[in-house]
């Protein structure tokens, strides 16, 4: 079942304590509403891809991007050409 604290953690969202229970009720109501789909017979539906198109492809031609400063400086926290983040401990693909 919908556990708002677990999902909020997964979604990296700090919820305001005073609205958390209201938010939880609302999401549960919406989940109750969409529950109606379970009754729809979809046994005849083949696949679910929407587009029959192929994706576009790009030729393997590199483009030099120039000075990184233009791209880095729009960040709120930087150090030189790098983005700064609070200490990261542990692995990436964690």
């Amino acid at each position, binding site marked *: 079942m919908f556990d708002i604290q677990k999902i909020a953690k997964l979604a990296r*969202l700090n919820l305001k304590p005073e609205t958390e229970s209201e938010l939880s009720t609302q999401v549960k109501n919406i989940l109750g509403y969409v529950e109606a789909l379970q009754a729809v017979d979809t046994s005849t539906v083949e696949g679910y891809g*929407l587009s029959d*198109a192929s994706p576009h492809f790009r030729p393997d031609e590199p483009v030099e991007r120039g000075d990184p400063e233009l791209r880095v400086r729009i960040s*709120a*926290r930087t150090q030189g050409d790098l983005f700064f*983040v*609070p*200490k990261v401990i542990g692995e990436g693909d964690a």
Partner: protein
Amino acid sequence: MPEAISALSATELRVAYRSGTLSVREVAAACLKQTERLDPRIKAFLHIDPAAVLSRAVKLDERRAELIDSPLYGIPVALKDNISTAGTPTTCGSHILEGYIPIYDAGVVEGLERNGALPFGKTNLDEFAMGSSTENSAYGPTRNPWDTTRVPGGSSGGSAAAVSARMVPIALGSDTGGSIRQPAALTGVIGLKCTYGLISRYGLVAYASSLDQIGPIARSVEDIALTLEAIAFNDPRDSTSLSDPRGGRYLNALDRPVTGLRAGLPAEFFGEGIDPKMRTSVLEAVKTLEKLGIKVEECSLPSLRHSLPAYYILAPAEASSNLARFDGIRYGPSADVPDIIEQYSATRGSGFGAETQRRILLGTFVLSSGYYDAYYLKAMKVRRLIRNELQKAFEKYDFLISPTTPDTAFRFGEKTADPLQMYLSDICTIGANLAGIPALSIPCGLIEGLPAGMQLWGPHFGERTLLGVAKSYLDASGCNGLRPQILKDGQL
């Protein structure tokens, strides 16, 4: 009288430019003046830089000889603030993008500039295009020019209001579940959601990628067609972008005879949940269509009943992933805390508004381990069912007719307490997004002084048929150029 100029359609402006009776600078100044006059009450714009608009206008005057034949030469076009504009703020109506200035232009912005248009400010929207009233904008709601105590609809409420209040002839919106058509209907203007893929999504900040489409809002069908000429192109930077197999030529489509076309009236959109006055208004319009020689008959699309629940699984699912990039690291405000997980959660917790958080939570849940099949996969199958059913209907009909909205513009706060009530505003429009087909909303009269909208649905790449029918209908019905109350106020 600035309004006299700013109220001109793009088509009329083109004539004036050709004859040399107006310069782009004069038009820009008139539109700025109208905006200055009315926007303090309407709040359609989040960002506008008059000096930049004027200097661009002067440049366009200088390039007259080169660009005069371009479809949008000298036409002011407002942009919904979820369309990326290099050097101009793009907030998506969210605090999480406060102060963010993009370093690149969206595909449509390039299309507009290539075709001589004058980009004119960024318009208000529900945060990340999630909503039907613009009440979800972090920067305050937009008001309906017909009645400023009412919402203009959403999420492209700012774009629709700016066009309706004659600040600009054309605005671009985006439509994921009705976000162009619903506000167009509620403000008495025309809005088109195109075939999925017809207009590049490159630079449209994604809400639900498989449903999002940019599209035009205008006061005349010709202007809608002109805009398509400029912004409908196959963009190599959008893998879902397509070429119109009929090769564009939208303006030509307006003169096509409509006699003999077949139209279906899906019973599902004329029964429960639709205000009886709205039903009457649309059925009146249908009579006009019949007089034009269109054969209209009732039909049934039972799967369309599942549109709303399918949408509220798929759109939040995609949104939860699309909005993951807003973490304050590379752009946007960032919480200053010593722990990385806390930095993410605090930045996102304070940056996103309530509706966005709701949809992120909902979407995260339906994709989470153990629930994917029951929710996401099921909804995808239902979506396919809806698409198949519509495709089948178009074997029989050239287009379908429904109301655009169940009711006319509602009052502020009327639907904010219960999200589900708000969601029901889109009950007539979501099906076209799920099926990827075009749908056009046109005014079909007033109900108690507020505009009503009729929606025409077409098959994939059926834009030309819809534009032709709309043109014939508006010419015949007198619903062309409905003037909202605020313009009349202004004259008092």
